[in-house]
């Protein structure tokens, strides 16, 4: 029950099938990494889980703690506990991070209940300290003029503030230099715990040097073709993805 359970889903965009029968379970408390070559459908999986309107799930189901979430709007899923750290976070001109996050936290409160400003800021500053962020950061407009590293740190700050049950991190390492990568990885590590399940989507092994996964899955052409422990990532680093492409022809491997 206490897991994010993807059951044999197929999904398409503009009538082109990208996810072709994928199953995967991420229990709370665990970190699962999905690796795969470009175009294997990793980011599509992230968007499907979050409910992006351009993607259509044609079969299968996604259960969060036993409840099917596929019929829910993106914001309903988010409030129930799914968080997606975007590969390319959007700008929201004129809206400060503090105000944006406040609206997001407020949206999780029961109808009619107002967020206490002092409680909110106390929590925000606590999380920022945890992530070693400068206080001035949250008075900037969301992602406007941010460097790649700042955008990703902003995603992690939101993850920390919104305390989801399951977090999907889509290529969080892309576009980061090694210092920024360490900062982001430290942030994620500090949030690991029994109440959070993490699905880490990455193209490169190097992120996994800093965030050690409990399980590693390899995705090729819309399916998981191999699963293993962290040593699988090292094997991929050494051998590349080509040796796995042959396995794609076979039916789903779990």
């Amino acid at each position, binding site marked *: 029950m206490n897991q994010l359970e993807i059951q044999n889903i197929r999904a398409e965009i503009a009538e082109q099938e990208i996810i072709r029968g994928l199953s995967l379970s991420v229990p709370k408390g665990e970190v699962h990494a999905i690796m795969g070559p470009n175009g294997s459908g990793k980011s599509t999986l992230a968007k499907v889980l979050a409910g992006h309107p351009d993607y259509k799930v044609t079969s299968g189901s996604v259960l969060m703690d036993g409840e099917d979430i596929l019929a829910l709007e993106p*914001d309903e899923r988010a409030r129930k506990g799914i*968080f997606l750290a975007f590969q390319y976070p959007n700008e929201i001109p*004129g809206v400060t991070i503090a105000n944006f996050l406040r609206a997001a936290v407020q949206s999780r409160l029961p109808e009619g209940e107002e967020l206490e400003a002092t409680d909110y800021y106390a929590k925000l500053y606590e999380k920022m300290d945890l992530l070693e962020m400068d206080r001035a950061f949250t008075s900037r407009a969301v992602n406007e003029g941010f460097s790649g590293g700042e955008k990703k740190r902003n995603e992690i700050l939101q993850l920390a503030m919104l305390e989801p049950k399951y977090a999907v991190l889509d290529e969080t390492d892309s576009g980061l230099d090694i210092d920024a990568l360490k900062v982001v990885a430290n942030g994620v590590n500090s949030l690991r715990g029994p109440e959070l399940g993490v699905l880490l989507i990455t193209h490169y092994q190097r992120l996994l040097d800093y965030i050690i996964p409990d399980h590693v899955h390899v995705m090729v052409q819309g399916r998981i073709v191999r699963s293993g422990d962290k040593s699988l990532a090292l094997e991929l680093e050494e051998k590349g993805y080509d040796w796995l492409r042959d396995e794609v022809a076979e039916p789903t491997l779990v």
Partner: protein
Amino acid sequence: MVTDTEAAPLGLERNANGDFSYPDTHLHDAGVGLTEETIHYISNIKEDPDWVRDFRLNAYKTFLSKPMPTHWASKDLEAIVFENIRYYLSSGTQAKRSWEDVPEDVKRTFERLGIPEQERKFLAGVEAQFDSEAVYSNIKAAVGEQGVIFVGSTEGLKNHPEIFRKWFGKVIPTGDNKFSALNSAVFSGGSFIYVPPGVKVKHPLQAYFRINAENFGQFERTLIIVDEGAELTYMEGCTAPKFNTATLHSAVVELVALKGAKIQYITVQNWSANVFNLVTKRAIAHEEAEVKWIDCNIGSRLTMKYPGVVLKGRKARGEVLSIALASNGQHQDTGAKMVHAADETTSNIISKSISIGTGRATYRGLVHVPKHLKNCKNNTECDALLINANSRTDTYPAITVRGTGNSVQHEASVSQVSAEQIFYMQQRGLTEAQAMSLSVNGFVNDLVRQFPMEYSVELKRLIELEMEGSVG
């Protein structure tokens, strides 16, 4: 959503669109249509002095002779049928000084809109107009003792003719346009304010305009004179319930800022979607005076309004900060006029418009600096935000700057709220409507920061309500 407000300070939004009305049982009703008889009826009821009656009759002739501004304005103006409008409705011409004396149904209307509450909280004085006449008008004793006059226009022209007559119709002549002529013929209600030299009115004065009757035309007339070195902030709010037939609101507002005076004039208009809102607003700024129009247009079917400042004295300064939000089926045709008429005058226009669905926002600006002037400056910025693919925005800046010693700067931008941006915000838990209203608030944020606090909080609430109504 994110608001710090406890109550609606400007009283516009207790319930969504002020969309409620009580049966209209007016004592005085000029009937439907406009003839000389109608004007005599209004003059008789109001016991106008002869000069006012003559002024009205002349204006009526001007109104008849003026064509509709069809050469550039929206064709929707043709939907106004002057013969079907009721031009005067009231239950008395004497505004009450105490809420206790205001008739019960009228009092209920304004209480639902939060008016007496705000007066206690932060206003220096309030006038409340219900259809044609002010029903309540009060100014705090301390402000009155400084010699500040704040009454309805009817009372102003009768009790203070020496000031009233000197300026009335001088900033905006009757023949300025067809609607200013119409207003001059049938005007009723509106505020008359005089602030004596050197008096700085600390808290805002507020007027509240309410249309309660169907097929009705509201023609208030406001005249504000701020004497040398004096300062005033004036706020007006407007609502009407939703009727099946169109309603006309056509005001004339004249401001005079004498040497070194400062006027800030703030409008929050939230008319229902059936109101034609055709308003002429202009100020004269004398030497070193400052006039700032803060103009916010949210509702109405068609708004045509271009607040202006005639910069008449050296170093005078004029400013228009405007926000227009055009929802489905609405057209906000707004802008600003800056007429430089003295050396070293400066003007600043910042306009932000938001178009939702089939809504259309038009910016129309006129900046005029003649050749013989020196060291004049104008800055114009207009930014448009489109919410949907079928939303529309147009910009018509007319900037004429002659001579060599003057400078002008103009920037315009159009942006769109993208589906990806909305998805990003939804992924953080905001509903689609909340995401859009936050985007819109972000878009207007740098402008709103310059507004008085009560006003910016209220504006955010109105935008949220409007976005909730327009999504899903």
